[in-house]
């Protein structure tokens, strides 16, 4: 089975471990293995939005250089923040010579200590952005092919109406990310389509969920998430699909606060794209970590299970 280098990031190891599990399960069903890097650090997450132009790129550069040094040229990530951070770091290194030199100076300076730990004896070669950072969704679209996913479905999600939600960092800034058109994307819609479900078009799919405002002014995030979730429901959605752990936190866990602030609000289950993929590919629904969801997924899960009638239990 083909192994592809995989960077999970912090969220997938803890709060969103069900995103990690479902991704790994799905990959196996689709014929490849997410091969977690033997050592990795924090990607830096928020620093890309800071004013500092180089220091915040050191950690992600080290990750990318390690991948390159291991002889691989593709790195899959799933968390939108990790994807954004790694990809933008790569972009800076590829396009800005001064950044590239400074980063490599830092990495080289850091190398002897790491040698001591890891017993590396490879000759130093500057990292120049050789590794291609790929979002798992992008890998599914471009390498596996949505058509092939459709063929491997054990439980097509027919009849299910799903609202895609993009969030912010998966697509922006466009010139650096180049995954899809940020104002009018289609990658999640096409993904939903490949699972046999129906896509719900609603205007808030690319609007902000509040991101880290969740910490500093949770009310703002509550208001934004209320609008996103309500609009999706008004347009007929049974469920929402996302890929970002922070979006998941805001759109799922925050539904408690939303219900308190807005009496008319009705809950709606939110899924990671990998969970729906994994279930549709026939992986046991017990492995999806649904117990970690704030909103009960049972109604939607029932629809899926009844829809196909049989599940290929793993």
């Amino acid at each position, binding site marked *: 089975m083909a192994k592809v280098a995989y960077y999970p990031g912090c969220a997938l190891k803890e709060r969103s471990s069900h995103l990690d599990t479902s991704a790994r399960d799905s990959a196996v069903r689709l014929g490849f293995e997410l091969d977690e890097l033997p050592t990795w650090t924090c990607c830096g997450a928020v620093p890309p939005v800071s004013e500092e132009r180089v220091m915040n790129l050191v950690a992600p550069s080290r990750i990318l250089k390690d991948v390159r040094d291991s002889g691989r040229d593709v790195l899959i990530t799933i968390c939108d923040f990790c994807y954004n951070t790694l990809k933008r770091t790569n972009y800076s290194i590829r396009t800005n010579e001064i950044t590239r030199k400074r980063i490599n100076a830092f990495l080289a300076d850091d190398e002897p200590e790491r040698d001591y730990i890891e017993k590396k004896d490879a000759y130093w070669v500057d990292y120049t952005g050789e590794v291609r950072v790929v979002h798992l969704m992008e890998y599914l679209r471009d390498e596996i092919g949505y058509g092939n996913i459709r063929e491997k479905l054990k439980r097509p999600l027919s009849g299910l109406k799903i609202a895609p939600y993009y969030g912010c960092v998966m697509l922006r800034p*466009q010139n650096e990310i180049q995954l899809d*058109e*940020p*104002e*009018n994307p289609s990658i999640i819609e096409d993904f939903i389509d490949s699972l046999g479900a129906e896509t719900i078009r609603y*205007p808030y799919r690319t609007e902000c969920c509040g991101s880290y405002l969740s910490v500093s002014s949770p009310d703002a995030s509550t208001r934004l998430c209320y609008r996103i979730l309500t609009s999706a429901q008004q347009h007929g959605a049974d469920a929402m699909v996302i890929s970002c752990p922070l979006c998941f936190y805001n759109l799922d866990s925050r539904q408690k606060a939303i219900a308190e602030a807005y009496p008319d609000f009705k809950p709606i289950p939110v899924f990671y794209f990998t969970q729906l993929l994994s279930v549709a590919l026939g992986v046991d629904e017990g492995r999806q970590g649904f117990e970690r969801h704030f909103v009960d997924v049972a109604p939607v899960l029932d629809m899926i299970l009844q829809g196909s009638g049989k599940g290929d239990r793993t």
Partner: protein
Amino acid sequence: MKRIGVFICHCGINIAGTVDVKRVAEEVAKLDSVVYAQDYIYMCSDPGQALVREKIRQEKLDGIIIAACSPSLHESTFRTAAEEAGLNPWQCEIANIREQCSWVHTDRKKATEKAIRIVSTMVEKTRLNESLEPIPVSITKKALVIGGGIAGIQAALDIADSGHKVILVEKESSIGGHMAQLSETFPTLDCSQCILTPKMVAAGKHRNIQLMTYSEVEEVSGYVGNFNVRIRRKAPFVDWSTCTGCGLCMEKCPAKVPSEFDRGLSTHGAIYIPFPQAVPNKPVIDRESCIYFKTGKCRLCEKTCEIGAIKFDQEDQIIEEEIGAIITATGYETLPVTELQEYGAGEVPDVIDGLAFERLLSASGPTSGEVRRPSDGRVPKEVVFVQCAGSRDPERYRPYCSKICCMYTTKHALLYKHRVHDGQPYIFYIDIRTGGKGYEEFYHNAEQDEGIIYLRGKVAKIFRDGDKTIVWGTDTLTGRNVEIQADLVVLATAVVPRESTAELVKKLRIQTGPNGFLSEAHPKLRPVESINSGFFIAGVAQGPRDIPETVAQASGAACKVISLFSRDHLEQDPAIAWVDEELCGGCRICISVCPYDAREYDEEKCIARVNEALCEGCGSCVAACACGATQQRNLSDSQIKSMVTASLGGE
């Protein structure tokens, strides 16, 4: 030894503010051959030029250097002055101490040193300059105008009226361009068709204008005064010489093609005339959508045509013409709504562009001038106009201002209000730009008295919700976000150059700027000429502009052509390449590097010659020539060597 005079211009404070002009005069006066050096506040003024002339005579100067602005500005001014004083014009050189020195430096001491070196460099050149005579070139007094919009029509009429022949080439089957699509024109609200069609008819009938519609320029070779042009006349599959334009064939044609002229708001057959006032009023068959061409069956039009004008076997014709000057007036397109992702990407039916709204307003349009929205034909009660849709947006779309949108959007809102009295127009804008005669008054009236709501801010998103089109925007004056449930949205999409213009400029070898619009020779002083001689430009192909400006520029371009044609022969700058026939080995490297096709091989003598009429004196072949056979007049190797030495400080 030559007697050289140096004249140093202050250019007010443009030069003297940064460069110590007195010191420059003192220093260069010490150079060999320099017998006179003087500064003056405005050398290009009458007294300044008089000083130059006087000193040439008095000091018996046989070479002069004007240390001033760029030669592209005043070289010809001073060469003429020199000639008036009996000096050969090629003995006058410009030392550019403004653009290349005072304007770009702040350190007075260093700038002065640099100015001295620049002048010394030109002294070295002038010391070895030869006196040259201009090369006479014959001229074909027939113009080619490419593009049959208002710019091309106006230019063609002006040239034709002066008695010279004009070929007016238009890609579509009728002339008229975008102006024919417009309803009424700002700020006077005259009907666009009413003021345009008389000009179209005049151009069609003028004895000096040869109209070639449904035609495209294939190839241009030659040089100013002597171009050879190949024009492709596309087969209309209708014999225009016998067709009476009765229109029966168009009624019978079963194909349905979205009308480009009506911006897709109506359809016509595969055989069609784009609009009723077309000139010439003859139909063409669109090969792509004709049922006969697609399936081999139908030929209904042929059966209908009593005079047998339908000719399915017609083929494209290639016509060759000799031309003296070419005006490019290829006009514009607007950024397609499909490219504006945040505004529905063309998927929301009631989001249309300004030209489509013109068709809705036009009495001859698909709704006969009633404003009805495309989705369900209802009269819209809330209409949102979005300015700068794709303009002034360097990150996502076009960086420039499309210039005409502020005015036409105000006009749109006004005309809408005149037709739908209980309707509410909103206009989102960044700034309102009303530079033009009567423009501000027009806007002021609309804003004050017509009940149009102006919202200063950008629209973030447009999407469809039920039968409404929702507009999310921001009003930066109140600092609030705005949501409008609109019935119709009109986008003032960015004005962009035509895609075909990019192809055409390659054939013509003229230049475009970073946004794809045609480049002028000088943005202020030579706005209707291309850098390449013999090529002129007019209309929006050069950059966004309105009708009056387009017409003025077209007349300007025509005037340049007429002035060119008023001469018996042209004079070519003799400071070009020449070949020492003794040295040339016939390797032909020069031919491969020449960007102007000016180098040709002489089979008999086995050497490479210079076509003096084509050579622009760029120096490419001079640099490429391995054996030193090709030399540039007044830029010989020894001149360049001593110039380099002087520019490095004389060491």
